[in-house]
C-alpha cells in the first residue's frame, strides 16, 4: 500500500510540476501573439519526431514485454485439461491464438512502423493514393479464408461437444442456488431419478431440491451439497438447473461451462480422463482438488459458490455411491411426504439398517462462506 501511495504521489508531483511550468509558458506566449484568422496552428511542433519515434519504440518494448510476460505467466494458463473435449478445445484455442498473434504482430508492426517512417518531414512528397481495389480484395479475402477455416473447425468441435450424451452416461442432477450447489444422484438401487418440482422445495422441511417423494424412483436418490463425485473415463451428463436466479456451472479443469436457469433445465456432458489422484501425482500437489465455480452473477456471494469435484476411478466411484445415504435415510421425516400406498416401499430406506458406511476418502468441503454444507442438515 505504501508503495502504491508513493508511486501516486510521485506521479502527481511530476504532473503538477509540468502543468505549472507549462501554464506559465502559455501565459507568456499568449500576451505576445494575437492569432490571425488563417494561422496554421496545427503545424508539426518540435515534439513531432519524438512522438513518431516514440510510437515505434513503444512497440518494440511492448514486444519484449509481451514475450517476457507470456513466458513468466504461461504456467497458469488454461489449467491442465482433464476432459477429453477439453484437450481438443485447448488445441484449437492455441491454434487460434497463434493465428491471431500473427495478425496482432503484423498489423501493429505496420501501424507503428508507418508512424515512425512517415513522421512529418518538410521535404517529403506525400503519395496521393485513394484506393486500390486489388489490395482491398486481397485483404478482404485473406481474413475471410482464415475465418472460414476457424469457423469450420470450431463448428466441428462445437457440434461434437453439444451432441446428445451417450445412453450410458452417468447422470447427475446439479442445482444452483444462492449461494451453493447441490448435486443429486439417481441412487444405486433403481438408477432412476425421482421427479422434482419446484413447488415441493422446502429448506426447512429438508427438501431443498424439491424431490417428489410420491415418485418411488426418488426413494434411493441421494444428494450432496459439498462435493460431487464422478467416474473417470466414463461419460458424465450434468443435468443443470437453478432454483432462484441464474447461475452457471463452471469446472475450469474440465472446460465445462453451462448456465443454470430457473425453469429451463440445461445439460452438458463430458468425459473426465484424469482422476483427482492422477492430477495430484501429475502436478506434484498432494492438496490438489478439482473445483466447481459459478460464472453467472447471482448476488452477494457469487464469488463463493464452490463445490468440490472428485474424480474417482470407476470402481471407487461405485463404492462411493454405495456409501451414500439416500435422502430418506438422511432425513426420515421426509417419509411424511410419501403417499400411504408407497410407504411400505419407502420404509426400507428409513429403517436404520446400516448401510455399508465407508468413510468418504479425502476432501472435506471448506466452503468459503460456510453456507453450502448446511443445506442438507
Amino acid at each position, binding site marked *: *500500500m505504501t508503495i*502504491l501511495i508513493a*508511486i*501516486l504521489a510521485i506521479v*502527481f508531483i511530476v*504532473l503538477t510540476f*509540468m502543468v505549472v511550468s507549462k501554464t506559465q509558458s*502559455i501565459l507568456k506566449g499568449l500576451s505576445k501573439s*494575437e*492569432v490571425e*484568422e488563417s494561422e*496554421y*496552428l496545427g503545424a*508539426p*511542433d518540435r*515534439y*513531432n519526431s519524438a*512522438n*513518431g519515434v516514440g*510510437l515505434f519504440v513503444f512497440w518494440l518494448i*511492448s514486444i519484449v514485454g509481451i514475450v517476457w510476460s507470456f513466458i513468466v505467466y504461461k504456467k497458469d494458463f488454461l489449467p491442465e485439461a482433464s476432459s477429453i473435449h477439453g484437450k481438443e*478445445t485447448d488445441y484449437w484455442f492455441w491454434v*487460434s*491464438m497463434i493465428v491471431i498473434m500473427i495478425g496482432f504482430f503484423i498489423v501493429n508492426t505496420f*501501424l507503428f512502423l*508507418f*508512424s515512425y517512417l*512517415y513522421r512529418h*518531414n518538410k521535404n*517529403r512528397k*506525400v*503519395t*496521393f*493514393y485513394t*484506393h486500390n481495389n486489388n489490395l*482491398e480484395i486481397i*485483404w478482404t479475402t485473406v*481474413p475471410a479464408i482464415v*475465418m472460414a477455416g476457424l469457423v469450420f473447425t*470450431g*463448428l466441428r468441435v*462445437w457440434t461434437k461437444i*453439444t451432441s446428445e450424451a451417450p445412453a450410458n452416461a452417468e447422470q447427475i442432477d446439479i442445482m444452483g442456488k444462492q449461494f451453493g450447489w447441490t448435486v443429486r444422484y439417481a441412487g444405486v438401487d433403481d438408477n432412476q431419478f425421482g421427479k422434482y418440482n419446484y413447488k415441493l*422445495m422446502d429448506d*426447512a422441511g429438508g427438501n431443498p431440491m*424439491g424431490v417428489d417423494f410420491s415418485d418411488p424412483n426418488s426413494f434411493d436418490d441421494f444428494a450432496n451439497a459439498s462435493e460431487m463425485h464422478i467416474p473417470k473415463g466414463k461419460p458424465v451428463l450434468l443435468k443443470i438447473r437453478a432454483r*432462484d*436466479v*441464474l447461475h452457471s456451472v463452471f469446472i*475450469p479443469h474440465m*472446460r465445462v*461451462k453451462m*448456465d443454470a*436457469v*430457473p425453469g429451463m433445465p*440445461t445439460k452438458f456432458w463430458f468425459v473426465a480422463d484424469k482422476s483427482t489422484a492422477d492430477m495430484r501425482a501429475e502436478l506434484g500437489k498432494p*492438496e490438489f482438488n478439482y473445483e466447481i465455480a459459478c*460464472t453467472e452473477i447471482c448476488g*452477494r456471494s*457469487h464469488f463463493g459458490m464452490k463445490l468440490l469435484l472428485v474424480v474417482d476411478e470407476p470402481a471407487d466411484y461405485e463404492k462411493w455411491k454405495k456409501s451414500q445415504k439416500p435422502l430418506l435415510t438422511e432425513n426420515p421425516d421426509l417419509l411424511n411426504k410419501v403417499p400411504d400406498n408407497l410407504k411400505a416401499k419407502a420404509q426400507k430406506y428409513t429403517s436404520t439398517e446400516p448401510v455399508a458406511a465407508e468413510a468418504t476418502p479425502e476432501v472435506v468441503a471448506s466452503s468459503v462462506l460456510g453456507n453450502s454444507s448446511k443445506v442438507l442438515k
Partner: protein
Amino acid sequence: MSTVSQVEVHEHSEHAHEEHHELGFIRKYIFSEDHKVIAKQYLISGIVWAVLGALMSVVFRLQLGFPEMDMAWMKPFLGDWISLDNKGLGKLDPNFYLALVTMHGTIMVFFVLTAGLSGTFSNFLIPLQIGARDMASGFMNMLSYWIFFISSVVMFVSLFIKTGPAGGSWVIYPPLSALKEANPGSGDGMTLWLVSMALFIVSSLLGGINYVTTVINLRTKGMSMDKLPLTIWAFTFTAILGILSFPVLLSAALLLIFDRSFGTSFYLSDIYINGQALPNQGGSPILFQHLFWFLGHPEVYIVILPALGLTSEVIATNSRKPIFGYKAMIFSMAGIMFLAFIVWAHHMFVTGMNPFLGSVFMLLTLIIAVPSAVKGFNYITTLWKGNIIFTPAMLFAIGLVSFFISGGLTGIILGNSALDIQLHDTYFVVAHFHLVMGSAAIFGMLAGVYHWFPKMFGRMMNNSMGYIHFWITFIGVYLVFFPMHYIGIAGFPRRYYQWSGFETFNTYMDLNAFITIAAIITVFAQAVFIFNFVYSIFWGKKASANPWKSNTLEWTTPINPGHGNWPGEIPTVYRWPYDYSKPGAPDDFIPQNVPYSATPESNLPEENELIAAEKEINSIKYDTSLHD
C-alpha cells in the same frame, strides 16, 4: 450543469449574433436549440460521468488487486458500504462491489460512450459538416438532451439510496434483477435504473431520428452522399443502429418492470427463494437475454462506429493524405451495421440455447470480423507514405487503431463457440471488450475533443499536456488490459469480489496488484486532460478558423460560429473531403467548397468533366434559413 452555461457566456458574449434576434440567457445556454451548445452540454455531462465511472473502477480494482487492504479511509465517502471487520479493518461490502461494477458498466457504456460520444459529436459535426444551419428539429434536439439529463439525475440519485444502486451487472439479467429478495441491488436501485434507462432510450431515439433526418434532408448544395465525410457516414449508421435496436431494449425493460411490479411472468418461472415458491410459471429468463443482446450487441457498434468515424477524419487530416479506400470504408461500416443485428446470440453460447443456433451465430460473428479488419487495414494504409503530424488528436487516433486491432483479434476466439465455453464470463472477455470497445471508443472521443476543440471553444488545447496525457494513458491502458487476458486464460471469472476461495484461482496475485496500480495511474492521469480542457476553454491560445488545414466544411465557419453556423450563405460543396496533398496543387489541402474550376492545375481527368456540372449545382435553390 452550471459549468456549461459559464463556458457559453464567455464564448459568445463577444460575438454578437448576426442573423437572429437575441435570445435570453436561458434559451441561449441552458434550454438551447443550437446544436453546438447541445453538443457541449453532452460533452461536459459525458466527462463528468466518465470521471465518476473511472473512479468506481479504481475502488473495485483496489479490492481485486489488494483484497487484504484496509479500506477504512474510504469510509468518509462510501459510508456504510465499507464495513469494519472484527480486526477493525475496513472492508468493501460484496454487495456494493457488485453495485459498483454495475454502475461502472452502465455509466461507461451508456452515459459516456453513447450519450457523451454520439451526443457530442453527432450534434456538433452533422450540421457543420453537411452544411446545415442546425439540426432538422432544434426543439427535439434540446428535448433529447434534457431527457438525457433527467435520466442522468435519476441514475445519479440511485447511487445514494439506502439499498444502493442496481447490482445485477449492466446486463441486468432476471431473475436476479427481478426479485427484490435476491439482492439488495434489485430493490429501489433497480427501479431507478430501469426508469433512468427508459428515459435514456427516449432521449437517444429523439437524437437518432434527428441525426438521420438531418443528414438525409439538410445537406448543402452539392453535398451528395458520396461527398460526405466518413464521420457523417459513421454517425448516420450509428443513429440507424440505435433507432432500430433501442426500442427492443425498451420493451425488454418494460416487461421486466411488469415482472417486478405487476406480478407478470415474462421472465420468471419455477422460482423458490427465501423459503418460498413463487407462483410465476412459464416465463423465460433466456427471453430477456435475447431481447437485451438484440440491443446489446448493436450497442457496442453504437459505441465504436462514431469513434471510428472521428478517427477517419483525424487520420486523413494529419497524415495529409486522402483516407484510403473511402468507398470500402463506407461499405465496411454498412456491412458492420447490418451484421451487428444478427450476431447478438454470441453472448449466449452457454445459456442452454439450442446448440444449432450457437453454430449459426458463430458463423455470423466470424463474418463480422472481416469488415472490421478491412477498416483497420485502410487506416494503416492511409498512414503509408503520408506526412504525419502527431497532434494529440492524431496520437489518440493511432492509439484507437491499435486497440481496435488488439481487442478485435481476441473476438475471433470468443466468437468461436467451442472456445467460448471456457472463456465466457472470465477476464478474457473483460480484457477483450475493454480494448476493442471501451478504450478504443474513449480514445476516439479524446481524439475528437482535441481535434474539434478549436471549433467548439475558439481556443486551442495545449499540445504538451496532450502528449503527456496520451503517453500515460496509452501505455497505461495496455498495462491494465493486456495482462487481464492472462488472468482470463487462467479461468478467473468476472464479477468476483475475490478469488481466494478457490484453489484454482489462487494465483496471479502479483498480476492483479500490478493491474490495479496501472489502472490507478491511468485514471489519475486523466486529471491532466481535465485540467487542459478547462484551462484551455478560458485561457487557451486563440484558435484560427482552420487550425489543422482541414477540408471539411466546419472549418469554413468563423472562429466562433454563431447560431446558424455561417454568417452569410452556406458554402456549396464540389468535391470529396479528402483532397489532401493532391499532385499539382499549391497547398496540401483543398477544402470541399473549392470548385474544380478553380483548381485546373490539380484536377484529375474525370474531375475536369465535372466542371460543367458546377453551374447546375450553383443554381440549386435551397431554403437554408433557420426556421423558428
